[in-house]
């Protein structure tokens, strides 16, 4: 490996040898509890700052719960696969894949307009999730696969 390998730039050698990590959940909301120790372990390994770690947890909870509640319509027994990879020292990438019918969480119909300030409709229980995803993820990308859906979330890490 050359010293100028763009994927290894500024990254200690031992980190470049770490394999990507994968977590497979079943399509039940209670499985989301398994996200936290996994994410905490990754945050510790990659020295993720607390605010970034908060943003990652927020977005993954939202994205995975969307998949379970809307993609799989709450039916248990299906897989939700989350792959983690450090794109480089400054960016962490999470890829969530499922085997659900087409469901684009970033589609126009998934983003209700913000009600007027002061309107009681601001206290509707739904509709906040997609705004939070857009605010707290560095970037989001949806792709329909032949077997399901793929959502890619990227987070910048400031060291």
């Amino acid at each position, binding site marked *: 490996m050359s010293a100028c390998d763009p994927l290894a730039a500024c990254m200690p050698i031992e980190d470049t040898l770490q394999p990507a990590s994968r977590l497979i959940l079943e399509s039940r909301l209670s499985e*989301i509890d398994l996200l936290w120790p996994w994410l905490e372990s990754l945050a510790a390994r990659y020295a993720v700052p607390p605010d970034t770690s908060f943003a990652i947890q*927020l977005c993954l909870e939202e994205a995975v*719960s969307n998949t379970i509640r809307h993609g799989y319509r709450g039916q248990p027994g299906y897989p939700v696969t989350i792959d983690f990879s450090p794109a480089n020292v400054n960016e962490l990438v999470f890829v969530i894949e499922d085997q659900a019918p087409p469901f684009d969480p970033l589609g126009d119909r998934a983003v209700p307009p913000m009600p007027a300030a002061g309107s009681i409709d601001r206290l509707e*229980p739904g509709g906040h999730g997609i705004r939070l995803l857009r605010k*707290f993820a560095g970037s989001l990308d949806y792709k329909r696969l032949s077997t399901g859906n793929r959502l890619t979330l990227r987070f910048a890490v400031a060291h």
Partner: protein
Amino acid sequence: MQITTEEMDGGINKVALDGRLDIAGAAIVDLKMNVIAGQSKKLLIDLKNVSFLGSMGLRSIVLPARAVLGHGGKVVLFGPTEMVESVIKTSGIDSLLPVHHDLAAAIAALQ
């Protein structure tokens, strides 16, 4: 996740949340929050010990608050951390549920 309540002077009910308001945390506090909301005209929700707030946890604040406002009451949010406050502001609920970091100001906002 823990939830404690306190009756303060001036008819204010204070509910303090402590821990992670994720899906599991929300499930723990939802029933009690809704009971408190049904009994409150002035509700102060103390968030200073909430270390995480996700969209499902947000529902645990939004639904009881909606109930209180629906019967003519007031709700204020007190002391969130910077990230928790960012979640609140991104969702836009702070236009109805003002955020205060000073307890006296929070109490005054409920009068």
